[in-house]
């Protein structure tokens, strides 16, 4: 188990978002966390990436408590792409991606040949080699998102946590980002955990789905086991039909109606 949440309790101030959650992420898997808005999926991801301090329970990275590990060491094992990240103005794509090398650098190790090849490889992997000297604010939404993923790649971590990497992207760009995630997993053997909104894309691109509601994990497992009509009713209050995706063979959700008006 690479990353593990044990009896995790999370919240902001007095508001409890997640109470007593257990979850394990196995090495070499792509996991998608799904659930309705406000169910605590982003909060969970932030805690697993030690961006949020749990109010109870613990997060274990390779069996060690993540909050007791030196932050640089964590940053060399685990990379996080936050939801709608912000960068200083005027930054170029190459500047941004180079910043991903921060956990590997010190005042006497500012730009090693490792840094250079990692940044070059990260740009190549995301197809941004030709845009490296362009300012970040001049890119399209899809390109910008790829630049941020590229930064997380340059960090050179085995584990990647991506918080809604496809938000604000049109369908083609969403596919582009998710194809990239698949390649990270297939070619580089990276372990990826991502929060996704689109259930059909989650089913197609993830090995495992984690369905959440009200801060609890309702179901976890392969998409074909998790994505059922009963689960959609329970988690999303949605009446839907599940058919087989004619392209990928994964479950495909065809919505019928919400249940909010129907008696429960």
């Amino acid at each position, binding site marked *: 188990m690479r990353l593990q949440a044990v009896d995790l309790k999370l919240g902001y101030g007095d508001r409890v978002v997640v109470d007593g959650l257990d979850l394990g992420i196995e090495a070499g898997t792509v996991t998608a966390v799904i659930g309705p808005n406000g169910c605590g999926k982003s909060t969970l991801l*932030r805690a697993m*990436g*030690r*961006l949020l301090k749990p109010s109870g329970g613990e997060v274990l990275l390779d069996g060690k408590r993540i909050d007791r590990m030196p*932050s*640089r*060491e*964590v*940053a*060399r094992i685990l*990379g*996080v*792409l*936050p939801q709608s*990240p*912000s*960068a*200083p*103005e*005027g*930054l*170029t794509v*190459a*500047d941004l991606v*180079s*910043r*991903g090398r*921060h*956990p590997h*650098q010190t*005042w*006497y*190790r*500012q*730009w*090693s*040949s490792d*840094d*250079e*090849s990692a*940044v*070059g*490889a990260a*740009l*190549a992997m995301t197809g941004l*080699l*030709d845009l*490296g*000297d362009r300012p970040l604010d001049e890119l399209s939404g899809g390109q910008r998102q790829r630049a941020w993923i590229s930064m997380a790649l340059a*960090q050179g971590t085995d584990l990647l946590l991506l918080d809604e990497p496809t938000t604000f992207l049109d369908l083609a760009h969403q596919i582009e980002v998710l194809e990239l995630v698949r390649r990270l997993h297939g070619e580089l053997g990276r372990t990826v955990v991502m929060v996704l909104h689109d259930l059909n894309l989650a089913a197609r691109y993830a090995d495992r789905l984690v369905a959440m509601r009200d801060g609890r994990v309702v179901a976890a497992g392969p998409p074909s086991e998790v994505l059922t009509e009963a689960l959609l009713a329970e988690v999303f209050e949605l009446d839907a039909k599940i058919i087989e995706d004619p392209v990928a063979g994964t479950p495909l959700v065809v919505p019928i109606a919400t249940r909010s008006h129907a008696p429960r």
Partner: protein
Amino acid sequence: MTSTAPPYLARRRALRIGPASWLLRPRSLAAALVLLGTTVLLMALSMRLGDIPMSVSEVLRAITGDGPDHFVVMQLRLPRALTGAGVGAALALSGAIVQAIARNPLASPDILGVTTGASVTVVAVIVAAGNTWGGVSGVLAEAGVPAAALLGGLIGALTVYLLAWRKGMDGYRLVLVGIGVSAICTNLKFWLLTVGDVNDSSRAMVWISGSLNGRGWEHVIPVAIALAVLLPPALLGTASLGALRFGDDTVTGLGVRMHLTRGLMILAAVLLAATATASAGPIAFVALAAPQIALRLAGVAQPPLVVSALAGAVLTVGADLIARTAFSPVELPVGVVTGVVGAPYLIYLLIRVRRKART
């Protein structure tokens, strides 16, 4: 990777010795050398100019000799120019740090409550030591001014910090609280000026404007010590300071201990600004403008610390030279000159930021 690096990565050159590597920034280095040269030139010029103009050879003779010229150069002009250079460098360094932490090119140490806190205590000391309240003797007031400024600056910064702290430090809240505390201090200061004796108030006004008039070696040394102690750790933190300009989650994700780094950097900025203010009063605009000039000269995205410090030295020594000689025999406080030069620059920055916000 066998493929050749793209040109923008190849441009990023490093000096590599074994496992160690240092980024080479030729343009930053050139900017630093030009600014250093300009500082030396301006200081040499201020040795020559004044009520008793001297040629270069006269200045050199004055340094080695022991006539009245020796006193003028070694006890009046040199310490004054050195104070100017040191104070300018310290203010600019402080400004560069604050702008990185506040993620705002319009931020300056003023928002940390240092300068306004110092102003209130100094005005209080001058007014209280004068005739108004029968107070202490004038000599004690003179000696007490730098001490009062240092103390007031630190108290001001502590007030801002405590009010802005809420389970961590947020750049925006820091700026807002800083503006609030500054406004209160400024009003207190004006109240003290109006109740004070006219002569005391006018003395206080000179200090509030920021002046290098009559600064001696006792003003050089504290600033030199502050720079010597605080510059090396600030330079070690340069990379983390750069990371702090990103969103909080990105900073933490990169393995930076955000609250610790931010706290230490703010402490360094406060100490630098407070020491500078104790020596020369709150000189306007240097901390704001110098880092922005430096980053444009060096062609980088983040105010570079050493180049900023040198830009601050050039600005302050240059402004003092103008203040001292332009309207001779009348001497202006240096802060008036930096203000006159700095105000249009601030307006320019505001317009630019607004334009950016609209597009």
